[in-house]
Protein backbone atom coordinates (compact mmCIF):
# COMPACT_ATOMS: atom_id res chain seq x y z
CA UNK A 1 0.00 0.00 0.00
CA UNK A 2 1.43 3.28 -1.02
CA UNK A 3 0.41 6.43 0.65
CA UNK A 4 1.02 9.80 -0.79
CA UNK A 5 2.75 12.00 1.70
CA UNK A 6 0.29 14.64 2.81
CA UNK A 7 1.26 18.07 1.55
CA UNK A 8 2.96 20.14 4.18
CA UNK A 9 0.37 22.18 6.02
CA UNK A 10 0.53 25.71 4.66
CA UNK A 11 1.31 28.48 7.11
CA UNK A 12 -1.84 29.89 8.63
CA UNK A 13 -2.95 33.41 9.34
CA UNK A 14 -2.71 34.29 13.03
CA UNK A 15 -5.67 33.20 15.12
CA UNK A 16 -6.70 36.83 15.66
CA UNK A 17 -6.64 37.46 11.91
CA UNK A 18 -8.71 34.34 11.28
CA UNK A 19 -11.29 35.20 13.92
CA UNK A 20 -11.54 38.74 12.56
CA UNK A 21 -11.81 37.42 9.01
CA UNK A 22 -14.70 35.05 9.66
CA UNK A 23 -16.66 37.34 11.94
CA UNK A 24 -16.30 40.11 9.36
CA UNK A 25 -17.32 37.75 6.55
CA UNK A 26 -20.49 36.75 8.37
CA UNK A 27 -21.38 40.34 9.25
CA UNK A 28 -20.71 41.79 5.82
CA UNK A 29 -22.57 39.08 3.90
CA UNK A 30 -25.44 39.43 6.37
CA UNK A 31 -25.34 43.21 6.07
CA UNK A 32 -25.38 43.14 2.27
CA UNK A 33 -28.46 40.94 2.04
CA UNK A 34 -30.06 42.82 4.91
CA UNK A 35 -29.53 46.06 3.00
CA UNK A 36 -30.91 44.66 -0.26
CA UNK A 37 -33.95 43.26 1.58
CA UNK A 38 -34.43 46.48 3.51
CA UNK A 39 -34.55 48.85 0.56
CA UNK A 40 -37.25 46.69 -1.03
CA UNK A 41 -39.18 46.01 2.18
CA UNK A 42 -42.36 47.67 3.44
CA UNK A 43 -43.44 46.16 6.77
CA UNK A 44 -39.96 45.18 7.90
CA UNK A 45 -38.19 48.29 6.64
CA UNK A 46 -37.90 50.08 10.02
CA UNK A 47 -36.74 46.94 11.84
CA UNK A 48 -34.19 46.07 9.17
CA UNK A 49 -32.98 49.67 9.06
CA UNK A 50 -32.46 49.65 12.83
CA UNK A 51 -30.37 46.46 12.60
CA UNK A 52 -28.55 47.75 9.50
CA UNK A 53 -27.39 50.88 11.34
CA UNK A 54 -26.10 49.06 14.40
CA UNK A 55 -24.44 46.33 12.33
CA UNK A 56 -22.87 48.99 10.11
CA UNK A 57 -21.22 50.64 13.09
CA UNK A 58 -20.01 47.27 14.42
CA UNK A 59 -18.55 46.52 10.97
CA UNK A 60 -16.82 49.91 10.98
CA UNK A 61 -15.21 49.17 14.35
CA UNK A 62 -14.14 45.70 13.19
CA UNK A 63 -12.81 47.13 9.92
CA UNK A 64 -10.57 49.56 11.78
CA UNK A 65 -9.39 46.83 14.17
CA UNK A 66 -8.68 44.58 11.18
CA UNK A 67 -6.81 47.30 9.37
CA UNK A 68 -4.58 47.86 12.41
CA UNK A 69 -4.11 44.09 12.78
CA UNK A 70 -3.27 43.74 9.08
CA UNK A 71 -0.64 46.48 9.30
CA UNK A 72 0.95 44.78 12.28
CA UNK A 73 0.93 41.20 11.00
CA UNK A 74 2.15 40.01 7.64
CA UNK A 75 -0.05 37.33 6.14
CA UNK A 76 1.58 34.00 5.25
CA UNK A 77 3.34 33.85 1.90
CA UNK A 78 1.33 33.17 -1.26
CA UNK A 79 1.03 29.57 -2.31
CA UNK A 80 3.04 28.45 -5.31
CA UNK A 81 -0.25 27.67 -7.03
CA UNK A 82 -0.73 31.39 -7.52
CA UNK A 83 1.02 32.97 -10.49
CA UNK A 84 2.42 36.50 -10.52
CA UNK A 85 -0.70 38.02 -12.07
CA UNK A 86 -3.00 36.27 -9.62
CA UNK A 87 -0.85 37.48 -6.74
CA UNK A 88 -1.12 41.01 -8.02
CA UNK A 89 -4.90 40.72 -8.34
CA UNK A 90 -5.13 39.18 -4.85
CA UNK A 91 -3.02 41.96 -3.33
CA UNK A 92 -5.05 44.73 -4.90
CA UNK A 93 -8.42 43.13 -4.23
CA UNK A 94 -7.43 42.75 -0.57
CA UNK A 95 -6.56 46.45 -0.43
CA UNK A 96 -9.82 47.34 -2.14
CA UNK A 97 -11.85 45.25 0.30
CA UNK A 98 -10.17 46.86 3.30
CA UNK A 99 -10.86 50.30 1.82
CA UNK A 100 -14.49 49.41 1.07
CA UNK A 101 -15.08 47.93 4.51
CA UNK A 102 -14.00 51.18 6.16
CA UNK A 103 -15.56 53.49 3.58
CA UNK A 104 -18.99 51.89 3.20
CA UNK A 105 -20.11 52.25 6.86
CA UNK A 106 -18.80 55.83 6.88
CA UNK A 107 -20.83 56.64 3.75
CA UNK A 108 -23.91 55.08 5.36
CA UNK A 109 -23.42 57.11 8.53
CA UNK A 110 -22.82 60.24 6.45
CA UNK A 111 -25.92 59.80 4.31
CA UNK A 112 -28.14 59.51 7.39
CA UNK A 113 -26.40 62.63 8.73
CA UNK A 114 -27.01 64.49 5.46
CA UNK A 115 -30.73 63.67 5.56
CA UNK A 116 -30.86 65.40 8.97
CA UNK A 117 -32.41 62.34 10.63
CA UNK A 118 -30.92 61.53 14.04
CA UNK A 119 -28.37 58.72 13.68
CA UNK A 120 -30.25 56.48 16.10
CA UNK A 121 -28.60 53.28 17.29
CA UNK A 122 -30.36 51.73 20.28
CA UNK A 123 -33.13 53.58 22.12
CA UNK A 124 -32.02 57.13 22.89
CA UNK A 125 -28.39 56.40 21.96
CA UNK A 126 -27.35 58.19 18.83
CA UNK A 127 -24.23 59.23 17.04
CA UNK A 128 -23.31 62.74 15.93
CA UNK A 129 -23.76 63.69 12.30
CA UNK A 130 -20.64 63.51 10.13
CA UNK A 131 -21.87 65.27 6.98
CA UNK A 132 -23.53 68.62 6.30
CA UNK A 133 -27.32 68.57 5.94
CA UNK A 134 -28.65 68.88 2.43
CA UNK A 135 -30.37 66.80 -0.19
CA UNK A 136 -27.65 67.29 -2.81
CA UNK A 137 -25.08 65.81 -0.41
CA UNK A 138 -27.59 63.12 0.54
CA UNK A 139 -28.24 62.18 -3.09
CA UNK A 140 -24.52 61.75 -3.82
CA UNK A 141 -23.91 59.71 -0.67
CA UNK A 142 -27.02 57.58 -1.19
CA UNK A 143 -25.92 56.72 -4.73
CA UNK A 144 -22.38 56.06 -3.49
CA UNK A 145 -23.73 53.70 -0.82
CA UNK A 146 -25.44 51.59 -3.49
CA UNK A 147 -22.41 51.62 -5.80
CA UNK A 148 -20.04 50.68 -2.96
CA UNK A 149 -22.42 47.93 -1.84
CA UNK A 150 -22.35 46.34 -5.28
CA UNK A 151 -18.58 46.77 -5.47
CA UNK A 152 -18.23 45.01 -2.13
CA UNK A 153 -20.60 42.29 -3.26
CA UNK A 154 -18.64 41.81 -6.49
CA UNK A 155 -15.27 41.72 -4.73
CA UNK A 156 -16.58 39.35 -2.04
CA UNK A 157 -18.06 37.05 -4.65
CA UNK A 158 -14.86 37.09 -6.71
CA UNK A 159 -12.82 36.40 -3.56
CA UNK A 160 -15.00 33.44 -2.55
CA UNK A 161 -15.04 32.07 -6.11
CA UNK A 162 -11.25 32.24 -6.30
CA UNK A 163 -10.79 30.49 -2.94
CA UNK A 164 -13.34 27.84 -3.89
CA UNK A 165 -11.60 27.25 -7.21
CA UNK A 166 -8.26 26.84 -5.45
CA UNK A 167 -9.66 24.61 -2.75
CA UNK A 168 -11.91 22.40 -4.87
CA UNK A 169 -10.21 22.57 -8.29
CA UNK A 170 -6.51 23.00 -7.55
CA UNK A 171 -6.83 21.27 -4.18
CA UNK A 172 -3.92 23.30 -2.89
CA UNK A 173 -5.27 23.75 0.63
CA UNK A 174 -5.57 27.52 0.21
CA UNK A 175 -8.59 27.66 2.49
CA UNK A 176 -6.70 25.93 5.28
CA UNK A 177 -4.64 29.06 5.81
CA UNK A 178 -7.77 30.70 7.12
CA UNK A 179 -9.66 27.86 8.83
CA UNK A 180 -10.09 27.95 12.57
CA UNK A 181 -10.15 24.21 13.10
CA UNK A 182 -7.33 22.29 11.45
CA UNK A 183 -9.49 19.57 9.95
CA UNK A 184 -8.19 17.07 7.37
Amino acid sequence: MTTEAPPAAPAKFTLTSRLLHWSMAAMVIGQFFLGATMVAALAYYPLLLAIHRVLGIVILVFAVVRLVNRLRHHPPAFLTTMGPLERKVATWSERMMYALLVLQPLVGWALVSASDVPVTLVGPVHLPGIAPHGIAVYAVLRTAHTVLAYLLFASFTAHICAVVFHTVGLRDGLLRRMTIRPWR
Partner: protein
Amino acid sequence: MPTPRLNRRDALVGLAAAGTVLAAGAGGLAEASGWLNTRRLTSSRFADRFEQVYGRHNGFRRNHAKGVAATGTFTSSGAGAALSSASVFAPGTFPVTARFSLGGTVPDAADQPGAVRGLGLMLQLPRGEQWRTAMINLPVFPDSTPQGFFDRLLAGKPDPATGQPVPSVMKAFLAEHPETAAAMKVIKASPPSSGFADSTFHGLNAFIATNSAGTSVPIRWSAVPMDPPGVSAPGGHDYLFDGLVERMHRGPVSWRLVLTVADPGDPTHDATLPWPPGRRTVDAGVITLDAVRTEAAGNARDVNFDPLVLPDGLSPSDDPLPQARSAVYARSFERRTREPKSPSEVDVEKVKT
Protein backbone atom coordinates in the same frame (compact mmCIF):
# COMPACT_ATOMS: atom_id res chain seq x y z
CA MET B 1 4.21 23.21 -0.96
CA PRO B 2 1.83 21.55 -3.37
CA THR B 3 2.64 22.19 -6.98
CA PRO B 4 -0.04 23.29 -9.41
CA ARG B 5 -1.65 20.20 -10.89
CA LEU B 6 -4.72 21.06 -12.83
CA ASN B 7 -6.23 18.47 -15.10
CA ARG B 8 -9.42 19.00 -17.07
CA ARG B 9 -11.60 17.26 -14.50
CA ASP B 10 -10.31 19.31 -11.58
CA ALA B 11 -10.64 22.51 -13.55
CA LEU B 12 -14.28 21.71 -14.34
CA VAL B 13 -15.02 20.81 -10.72
CA GLY B 14 -13.36 24.03 -9.56
CA LEU B 15 -15.25 26.13 -12.08
CA ALA B 16 -18.52 24.41 -11.23
CA ALA B 17 -17.99 25.09 -7.52
CA ALA B 18 -17.10 28.73 -8.17
CA GLY B 19 -20.11 29.01 -10.51
CA THR B 20 -22.33 27.67 -7.73
CA VAL B 21 -21.06 30.38 -5.41
CA LEU B 22 -21.75 33.00 -8.08
CA ALA B 23 -25.25 31.67 -8.73
CA ALA B 24 -26.06 31.54 -5.02
CA GLY B 25 -24.92 35.14 -4.60
CA ALA B 26 -26.83 36.43 -7.60
CA GLY B 27 -29.91 34.40 -6.67
CA GLY B 28 -29.80 35.66 -3.10
CA LEU B 29 -29.52 39.23 -4.29
CA ALA B 30 -32.42 38.82 -6.73
CA GLU B 31 -34.60 37.26 -4.05
CA ALA B 32 -33.71 39.87 -1.42
CA SER B 33 -34.44 42.70 -3.84
CA GLY B 34 -37.81 41.27 -4.85
CA TRP B 35 -36.82 40.82 -8.50
CA LEU B 36 -38.01 37.19 -8.60
CA ASN B 37 -41.52 37.84 -7.35
CA THR B 38 -43.03 40.70 -9.32
CA ARG B 39 -46.16 40.64 -7.17
CA ARG B 40 -44.33 41.33 -3.94
CA LEU B 41 -45.17 44.83 -2.77
CA THR B 42 -41.85 46.65 -2.48
CA SER B 43 -41.14 50.29 -1.70
CA SER B 44 -40.11 50.78 -5.33
CA ARG B 45 -43.33 49.33 -6.67
CA PHE B 46 -45.29 51.53 -4.30
CA ALA B 47 -43.48 54.64 -5.51
CA ASP B 48 -43.92 53.42 -9.11
CA ARG B 49 -47.65 53.21 -8.59
CA PHE B 50 -47.92 56.93 -7.82
CA GLU B 51 -45.94 57.62 -10.99
CA GLN B 52 -48.04 55.16 -12.99
CA VAL B 53 -51.33 56.76 -11.99
CA TYR B 54 -50.49 60.47 -12.18
CA GLY B 55 -47.17 60.64 -14.03
CA ARG B 56 -43.69 61.32 -12.74
CA HIS B 57 -42.93 64.80 -11.51
CA ASN B 58 -39.17 65.20 -11.10
CA GLY B 59 -37.89 66.54 -7.82
CA PHE B 60 -41.26 66.40 -6.06
CA ARG B 61 -42.60 64.01 -3.46
CA ARG B 62 -44.36 60.98 -4.93
CA ASN B 63 -47.45 61.99 -2.93
CA HIS B 64 -48.51 65.28 -1.37
CA ALA B 65 -46.41 66.89 -4.10
CA LYS B 66 -47.94 70.38 -3.84
CA GLY B 67 -46.94 72.27 -0.75
CA VAL B 68 -45.53 75.24 1.05
CA ALA B 69 -42.96 75.47 3.86
CA ALA B 70 -43.47 77.02 7.28
CA THR B 71 -41.65 77.41 10.57
CA GLY B 72 -42.63 78.05 14.15
CA THR B 73 -42.57 76.46 17.57
CA PHE B 74 -44.24 73.87 19.73
CA THR B 75 -44.76 74.90 23.32
CA SER B 76 -45.33 71.86 25.47
CA SER B 77 -47.62 72.28 28.46
CA GLY B 78 -46.05 69.32 30.21
CA ALA B 79 -49.42 67.57 30.42
CA GLY B 80 -48.34 64.89 27.95
CA ALA B 81 -45.57 63.76 30.29
CA ALA B 82 -48.09 61.69 32.25
CA LEU B 83 -48.50 59.55 29.13
CA SER B 84 -45.03 59.60 27.61
CA SER B 85 -41.54 60.32 28.83
CA ALA B 86 -40.70 61.71 25.36
CA SER B 87 -38.72 64.93 25.60
CA VAL B 88 -41.35 66.65 23.44
CA PHE B 89 -43.90 66.37 26.28
CA ALA B 90 -41.70 67.87 29.00
CA PRO B 91 -42.49 71.57 29.51
CA GLY B 92 -40.58 73.67 27.00
CA THR B 93 -40.58 75.31 23.61
CA PHE B 94 -39.10 73.55 20.59
CA PRO B 95 -38.43 74.73 17.02
CA VAL B 96 -40.76 73.35 14.35
CA THR B 97 -40.28 72.92 10.61
CA ALA B 98 -43.66 72.42 8.93
CA ARG B 99 -45.08 71.79 5.49
CA PHE B 100 -48.64 72.25 4.32
CA SER B 101 -49.55 70.08 1.38
CA LEU B 102 -52.30 68.70 -0.81
CA GLY B 103 -52.67 64.98 -1.35
CA GLY B 104 -51.91 63.82 -4.87
CA THR B 105 -48.84 63.54 -7.00
CA VAL B 106 -49.30 66.53 -9.30
CA PRO B 107 -47.24 69.42 -7.90
CA ASP B 108 -49.28 72.13 -9.63
CA ALA B 109 -52.76 70.61 -9.27
CA ALA B 110 -55.59 73.09 -8.73
CA ASP B 111 -56.77 73.36 -5.12
CA GLN B 112 -60.09 71.61 -4.52
CA PRO B 113 -62.17 71.84 -1.34
CA GLY B 114 -62.22 68.04 -1.05
CA ALA B 115 -58.52 67.46 -1.75
CA VAL B 116 -56.75 65.90 1.20
CA ARG B 117 -54.80 68.51 3.16
CA GLY B 118 -51.59 67.56 4.90
CA LEU B 119 -49.51 69.04 7.68
CA GLY B 120 -46.03 67.65 8.18
CA LEU B 121 -44.14 68.60 11.33
CA MET B 122 -40.53 68.14 12.34
CA LEU B 123 -39.82 69.10 15.95
CA GLN B 124 -36.22 69.61 17.05
CA LEU B 125 -35.88 68.25 20.57
CA PRO B 126 -33.14 68.33 23.19
CA ARG B 127 -30.13 65.99 22.85
CA GLY B 128 -30.47 65.76 19.08
CA GLU B 129 -33.82 63.98 19.15
CA GLN B 130 -36.57 64.73 16.64
CA TRP B 131 -40.22 64.02 16.26
CA ARG B 132 -41.60 63.89 12.75
CA THR B 133 -45.25 63.41 11.96
CA ALA B 134 -47.30 63.79 8.80
CA MET B 135 -50.98 64.39 9.45
CA ILE B 136 -54.00 64.87 7.20
CA ASN B 137 -57.40 66.49 7.58
CA LEU B 138 -59.36 63.23 7.29
CA PRO B 139 -60.81 61.79 10.51
CA VAL B 140 -59.76 58.24 9.56
CA PHE B 141 -57.48 56.78 6.89
CA PRO B 142 -59.28 55.16 3.94
CA ASP B 143 -57.13 52.01 4.04
CA SER B 144 -56.17 49.60 6.78
CA THR B 145 -53.23 48.00 4.98
CA PRO B 146 -50.49 49.12 2.57
CA GLN B 147 -51.84 46.68 -0.02
CA GLY B 148 -55.30 48.26 0.25
CA PHE B 149 -53.83 51.72 -0.38
CA PHE B 150 -51.77 50.39 -3.28
CA ASP B 151 -54.81 48.80 -4.90
CA ARG B 152 -57.03 51.82 -4.27
CA LEU B 153 -54.55 54.08 -6.06
CA LEU B 154 -54.97 52.04 -9.22
CA ALA B 155 -58.74 51.79 -8.79
CA GLY B 156 -58.84 55.57 -8.59
CA LYS B 157 -56.74 56.08 -11.71
CA PRO B 158 -58.40 58.71 -13.91
CA ASP B 159 -59.78 57.46 -17.19
CA PRO B 160 -57.89 59.38 -19.93
CA ALA B 161 -61.21 59.97 -21.74
CA THR B 162 -63.08 61.58 -18.87
CA GLY B 163 -60.28 62.62 -16.48
CA GLN B 164 -62.29 60.92 -13.73
CA PRO B 165 -61.88 57.53 -12.05
CA VAL B 166 -63.95 54.78 -13.66
CA PRO B 167 -66.97 54.35 -11.31
CA SER B 168 -67.33 50.62 -11.93
CA VAL B 169 -63.68 50.00 -11.05
CA MET B 170 -63.91 51.95 -7.80
CA LYS B 171 -67.19 50.21 -7.00
CA ALA B 172 -65.55 46.81 -7.46
CA PHE B 173 -62.67 47.91 -5.23
CA LEU B 174 -65.02 49.07 -2.47
CA ALA B 175 -66.95 45.80 -2.67
CA GLU B 176 -63.70 43.99 -1.92
CA HIS B 177 -62.70 46.49 0.75
CA PRO B 178 -65.60 47.06 3.15
CA GLU B 179 -63.18 48.75 5.57
CA THR B 180 -62.53 51.45 2.97
CA ALA B 181 -66.24 51.83 2.22
CA ALA B 182 -66.91 52.27 5.95
CA ALA B 183 -64.03 54.76 6.30
CA MET B 184 -65.41 56.76 3.35
CA LYS B 185 -68.71 57.14 5.25
CA VAL B 186 -66.87 58.49 8.30
CA ILE B 187 -64.90 60.86 6.07
CA LYS B 188 -68.08 62.10 4.31
CA ALA B 189 -69.65 62.83 7.70
CA SER B 190 -67.00 65.43 8.52
CA PRO B 191 -66.79 67.88 5.62
CA PRO B 192 -63.54 69.80 5.18
CA SER B 193 -63.09 73.23 6.74
CA SER B 194 -62.65 76.40 4.69
CA GLY B 195 -58.87 76.36 4.55
CA PHE B 196 -55.60 75.17 6.04
CA ALA B 197 -55.63 77.45 9.10
CA ASP B 198 -58.97 76.14 10.41
CA SER B 199 -58.34 72.48 9.52
CA THR B 200 -57.95 69.80 12.13
CA PHE B 201 -55.04 67.55 11.18
CA HIS B 202 -55.06 63.95 12.38
CA GLY B 203 -52.09 61.66 12.92
CA LEU B 204 -54.51 58.72 12.36
CA ASN B 205 -52.09 55.93 13.19
CA ALA B 206 -51.91 54.66 16.76
CA PHE B 207 -48.58 54.88 18.55
CA ILE B 208 -47.53 53.58 21.93
CA ALA B 209 -46.74 56.20 24.57
CA THR B 210 -44.56 55.03 27.47
CA ASN B 211 -44.19 57.19 30.56
CA SER B 212 -41.31 57.39 33.03
CA ALA B 213 -42.98 54.76 35.22
CA GLY B 214 -42.82 52.36 32.28
CA THR B 215 -46.58 52.33 31.68
CA SER B 216 -47.53 52.08 28.02
CA VAL B 217 -50.78 53.16 26.43
CA PRO B 218 -51.85 53.54 22.78
CA ILE B 219 -52.48 57.11 21.67
CA ARG B 220 -53.45 58.98 18.52
CA TRP B 221 -52.83 62.67 18.05
CA SER B 222 -54.43 65.60 16.28
CA ALA B 223 -53.65 69.25 15.70
CA VAL B 224 -56.84 71.15 16.54
CA PRO B 225 -57.03 74.68 15.08
CA MET B 226 -57.29 77.69 17.36
CA ASP B 227 -58.63 79.78 14.46
CA PRO B 228 -62.42 79.87 14.36
CA PRO B 229 -64.04 78.08 11.39
CA GLY B 230 -63.90 80.27 8.30
CA VAL B 231 -66.24 80.51 5.36
CA SER B 232 -65.27 78.34 2.43
CA ALA B 233 -64.68 80.40 -0.68
CA PRO B 234 -63.15 78.26 -3.41
CA GLY B 235 -61.66 80.60 -5.95
CA GLY B 236 -58.37 80.61 -7.76
CA HIS B 237 -56.08 77.79 -8.78
CA ASP B 238 -54.21 77.95 -5.46
CA TYR B 239 -56.96 79.37 -3.25
CA LEU B 240 -56.21 77.14 -0.26
CA PHE B 241 -52.52 78.01 -0.23
CA ASP B 242 -53.14 81.69 -1.03
CA GLY B 243 -55.60 81.83 1.85
CA LEU B 244 -53.03 80.30 4.19
CA VAL B 245 -50.31 82.73 3.11
CA GLU B 246 -52.66 85.70 3.56
CA ARG B 247 -53.71 84.39 6.97
CA MET B 248 -50.12 83.97 8.08
CA HIS B 249 -49.22 87.46 6.93
CA ARG B 250 -51.79 88.69 9.45
CA GLY B 251 -50.15 86.78 12.30
CA PRO B 252 -49.14 83.39 13.65
CA VAL B 253 -51.54 80.45 13.31
CA SER B 254 -51.86 77.96 16.14
CA TRP B 255 -53.11 74.46 16.75
CA ARG B 256 -53.50 72.59 20.03
CA LEU B 257 -51.73 69.25 19.99
CA VAL B 258 -54.30 66.86 21.41
CA LEU B 259 -53.40 63.32 22.43
CA THR B 260 -56.29 60.86 22.49
CA VAL B 261 -55.81 57.91 24.82
CA ALA B 262 -57.19 54.49 23.84
CA ASP B 263 -59.39 52.51 26.19
CA PRO B 264 -58.49 48.85 26.50
CA GLY B 265 -59.81 47.09 23.41
CA ASP B 266 -59.76 50.12 21.12
CA PRO B 267 -58.34 49.12 17.74
CA THR B 268 -54.73 50.19 17.26
CA HIS B 269 -54.03 48.05 14.19
CA ASP B 270 -56.49 49.70 11.83
CA ALA B 271 -56.45 53.41 10.93
CA THR B 272 -59.84 53.12 9.18
CA LEU B 273 -61.54 52.65 12.55
CA PRO B 274 -62.23 55.75 14.63
CA TRP B 275 -62.01 55.40 18.38
CA PRO B 276 -65.35 55.92 20.10
CA PRO B 277 -66.07 59.54 21.05
CA GLY B 278 -65.48 60.52 24.66
CA ARG B 279 -62.04 59.00 24.95
CA ARG B 280 -59.72 60.80 27.34
CA THR B 281 -57.73 63.55 25.67
CA VAL B 282 -54.67 65.42 26.83
CA ASP B 283 -53.73 68.90 25.63
CA ALA B 284 -50.00 68.47 25.17
CA GLY B 285 -49.30 72.01 24.04
CA VAL B 286 -49.60 74.51 21.23
CA ILE B 287 -48.08 74.43 17.74
CA THR B 288 -47.60 77.97 16.47
CA LEU B 289 -46.48 78.63 12.92
CA ASP B 290 -45.38 82.20 12.30
CA ALA B 291 -43.54 82.17 8.98
CA VAL B 292 -44.48 80.75 5.60
CA ARG B 293 -41.97 80.31 2.76
CA THR B 294 -41.95 79.11 -0.80
CA GLU B 295 -40.50 75.60 -0.92
CA ALA B 296 -36.77 75.89 -1.44
CA ALA B 297 -33.47 74.21 -0.67
CA GLY B 298 -32.93 73.79 3.06
CA ASN B 299 -36.53 74.33 4.19
CA ALA B 300 -39.39 71.85 4.60
CA ARG B 301 -39.07 70.93 0.92
CA ASP B 302 -36.05 68.85 1.85
CA VAL B 303 -37.55 67.12 4.88
CA ASN B 304 -38.83 63.56 4.74
CA PHE B 305 -41.72 63.58 7.22
CA ASP B 306 -41.05 59.96 8.12
CA PRO B 307 -43.64 58.99 10.76
CA LEU B 308 -41.17 56.69 12.49
CA VAL B 309 -38.68 59.38 13.45
CA LEU B 310 -39.87 59.39 17.05
CA PRO B 311 -38.40 60.57 20.34
CA ASP B 312 -37.69 57.93 22.95
CA GLY B 313 -41.01 57.41 24.79
CA LEU B 314 -43.09 57.07 21.62
CA SER B 315 -43.01 53.88 19.58
CA PRO B 316 -44.97 52.22 16.79
CA SER B 317 -48.05 50.12 17.55
CA ASP B 318 -49.36 47.11 15.61
CA ASP B 319 -50.74 49.49 12.96
CA PRO B 320 -49.07 48.31 9.71
CA LEU B 321 -49.25 51.69 7.96
CA PRO B 322 -46.41 53.67 9.61
CA GLN B 323 -43.83 51.00 8.72
CA ALA B 324 -44.90 51.08 5.07
CA ARG B 325 -45.10 54.87 5.08
CA SER B 326 -41.56 55.03 6.42
CA ALA B 327 -40.35 52.71 3.65
CA VAL B 328 -42.18 54.45 0.81
CA TYR B 329 -41.31 57.96 2.05
CA ALA B 330 -37.66 56.88 2.10
CA ARG B 331 -37.97 55.63 -1.48
CA SER B 332 -39.69 58.84 -2.55
CA PHE B 333 -36.95 60.88 -0.83
CA GLU B 334 -34.24 58.80 -2.46
CA ARG B 335 -35.76 59.39 -5.90
CA ARG B 336 -36.62 63.05 -5.63
CA THR B 337 -33.30 64.10 -4.12
CA ARG B 338 -31.53 62.77 -7.23
CA GLU B 339 -33.93 64.30 -9.74
CA PRO B 340 -33.65 67.79 -11.23
CA LYS B 341 -35.67 70.36 -9.29
CA SER B 342 -38.14 72.91 -10.54
CA PRO B 343 -39.87 75.75 -8.66
CA SER B 344 -42.90 74.92 -6.58
CA GLU B 345 -46.34 76.07 -7.72
CA VAL B 346 -47.06 78.00 -4.55
CA ASP B 347 -44.91 81.14 -4.53
CA VAL B 348 -45.35 82.99 -1.28
CA GLU B 349 -43.94 86.23 -2.75
CA LYS B 350 -46.63 86.32 -5.41
CA VAL B 351 -49.54 86.10 -3.00
CA LYS B 352 -51.16 89.50 -2.50
CA THR B 353 -51.02 90.61 1.09
